């Protein structure tokens, strides 16, 4: 009600007078202190997201469908050794439209790979052959566009490479180079196909494997629920505040490796900040050299990095986007570090 009329003026003036008196009324700083302390614990979403369809804590440490029981897993993932010692890795992907719960009680009409957002994580070793059979079971044309070396026919981006509803396509290429990559739908309009949920992690391990570590995948993503080209929910691995309620358990003294990918749409950048610690950053994971030693790393859309650190102290460590807005809109979680074992 920006238009000032005689009456609105009256309202505002008198409200100001009354407001002033009301504040004067408010004595007792204890009351205020109590209220403030209370409010401090009240940030965040209310309730819990159902984890039967998608559990962020399971997604965190699952690749090549390792979350599925044996026979079920075989339907989606098969390994065939090749003469040169590498593997042929076969994946069954399908796209399907599905409502997903992104914050407690908030359902987003997502477009998904295999019914989940982010899509299943693909993990191969450099030199392996990756073969992804993609069936489009959704109502819209889609594709899978992999980052990494591949011939143009496997790019999934050109107009004649769209997979129409009901059709299938087989993407096949060598896993190169080692590092942390991603895949996503490359059908136009791109913004929509991405923010609707068609993306996932594509990890390629070096031939000489990295040091053993507690490894986890974190995809920074966000959702525009009211179609105003701004995100209402931010998260790492889709569900707002998921790791606040269900902290990521790690061991003190054990190397932790985080595969971090930014797939946030609409916002130019996203970031990862870890409390009380520092970590090594391997940008895109394609070189052995550490790019930096920091506690905050910034990633552009589609950019990714491998982070390595070792927890020094037991206890809870917060991690979140250092864009406070994203953090307060759901992109915030906890690591819970536990001493390695009781007798040491």
């Amino acid at each position, binding site marked *: 009600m920006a238009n000032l*009329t005689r009456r609105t003026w009256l309202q505002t003036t008198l*409200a100001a007078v*009354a407001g002033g008196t009301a504040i004067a009324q*408010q004595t007792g700083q204890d009351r205020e202190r109590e209220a403030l302390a209370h409010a401090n614990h009240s940030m965040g979403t*209310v309730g819990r997201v159902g984890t039967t369809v998608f559990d962020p804590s399971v997604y965190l440490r699952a690749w090549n469908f390792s979350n599925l029981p044996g026979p079920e897993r075989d339907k989606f993932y098969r390994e065939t050794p090749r003469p040169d010692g590498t593997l042929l890795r076969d994946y069954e992907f399908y796209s399907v439209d599905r409502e997903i719960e992104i914050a407690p009680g908030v359902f987003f009409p997502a477009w998904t790979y295999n019914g989940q957002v982010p899509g299943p994580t693909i993990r191969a070793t450099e030199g392996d052959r990756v073969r992804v059979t993609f069936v489009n079971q959704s109502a819209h044309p889609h594709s899978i566009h992999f980052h990494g070396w591949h011939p143009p026919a496997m790019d999934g981006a050109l107009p004649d490479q769209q997979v129409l509803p009901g059709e299938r396509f087989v993407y096949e290429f060598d896993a190169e180079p080692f590092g942390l990559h991603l895949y996503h739908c490359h059908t136009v309009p791109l913004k929509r196909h991405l923010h609707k949920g068609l993306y996932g992690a594509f990890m390629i391990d070096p031939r000489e494997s990295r040091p053993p570590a507690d490894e986890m995948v974190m995809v920074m993503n966000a959702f525009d629920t009211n179609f105003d080209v701004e995100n209402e929910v931010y998260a790492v691995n889709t569900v707002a505040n998921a790791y606040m309620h269900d902290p990521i358990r790690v061991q003190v003294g054990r190397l932790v490796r985080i595969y971090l990918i930014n797939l946030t749409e609409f916002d130019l950048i996203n970031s990862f900040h870890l409390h009380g610690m520092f970590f090594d950053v391997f940008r895109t994971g394609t070189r052995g050299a550490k790019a930096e030693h920091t506690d905050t790393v910034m990633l552009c859309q589609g950019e990714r990095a491998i982070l390595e650190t070792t927890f020094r102290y037991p206890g809870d460590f917060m991690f979140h986007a250092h864009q406070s807005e994203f953090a307060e809109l759901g992109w915030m979680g906890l690591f819970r570090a536990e001493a390695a074992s009781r007798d040491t």
Partner: protein
Amino acid sequence: MTRNGTVLPPGRVQRWLTGLAPLALLAALIGGLVWWGPGNALRGDGYPPVERLTFQRVELTTDGIVVHVLNDGPDAVQIAQVQVDDAYWMFTADNRTALSHLARTTLSIPYPWVHGEAHVVRLVTSTGATFDHEIAVAVPTPQANVKSLGLFTLMGVYVGVVPVAIGLLWFPLVSQMSRRGLDFVLALTIGLLLFLLLDAVGEGLSVAGTMPGSFQGATLFAFGALAAYLALEGLGQWLRARRERAKAAPSTEWVLALLIAVGIGLHNFGEGLAIGAAFALGEAALGTLLVIGFTLHNTTEGLAIVAPLARERVRLADLVKLGLIGGVPTIAGAWLGGLVYSPVWSVLFLAIGAGAIAQVILQIGTQTARDLPLMRFLATGHVMAGLFAGFAVMYATGMLVG
């Protein structure tokens, strides 16, 4: 039918039947619509629900923000999360978060709001739709206690009673005026009232526009105004009829003054309601000094009341009575608006004020015009001058007010 004629006259049964048959058919039709739902067939599967939430009242307390929400849309709405200033915030609902059509709920959000700053409360529904409410300037919402009631009373006295009383003090001057001078003053009064009428219509319709669609604000306003007009017309006739029966009863002039006081009182009730509403909505701004401007503006209402009494012998007690009728409703309005605000009340009472004033304008007009047709009277030089002067005074003092 004819055989039952002895028990019940056939004409009556027929009348009942002709009255009830369409109703029965209508009930069947509605039943059919609900049962088979051709509307749903039109809408098809997978259409998102039409969600609409209206903020009815927002309170700021030491514990945070309390919002009263109404589902104003046709479909059920599930409130899933609450954001304040782009941050998800915990909240508790007094009874539920799943709201059917026209259901209400109250959400308490322990948000540390900052005095004097702006905040935005955003409700996120299960489908991800969002509904925002902006708190333009955050100040604590007065609670219903002796202190706030006293404060509302003081506001009402300040804005309603005192200016009207001051205006009444022009009575001695008015009583010494010539015929033409008096016509001028009465025309001035019409001008003043005309301004108030237009202002009330504008304001009423603008509040009606902010109301939930289901409440049909504009229609409510029009009907409220018409009802008030007719009620005041009836009151005037009743007063005059009583006067004819008893010789000692008041004169036409007195009746007119009384009607003007009642009309202005009703108008001021709506004004008081708006004052209280400002608290209820948590709206506030700066500029206390401008109260002076408003006092000036309302002083003219007192003049309007005494103008018809110029040729009467009036006791002080009667003047006080008229002043109270015109001014005191502001206090009652402020109480109602501050403690149980809803835009419906605002629209309704602005409408009643508008209708009452319209009636009073016509009363003064016809009574002052005497034998002349109203328009010809108004078109007379000095009367027209008075009319414009009245409007100009209101317009100018209105400018002081914003």
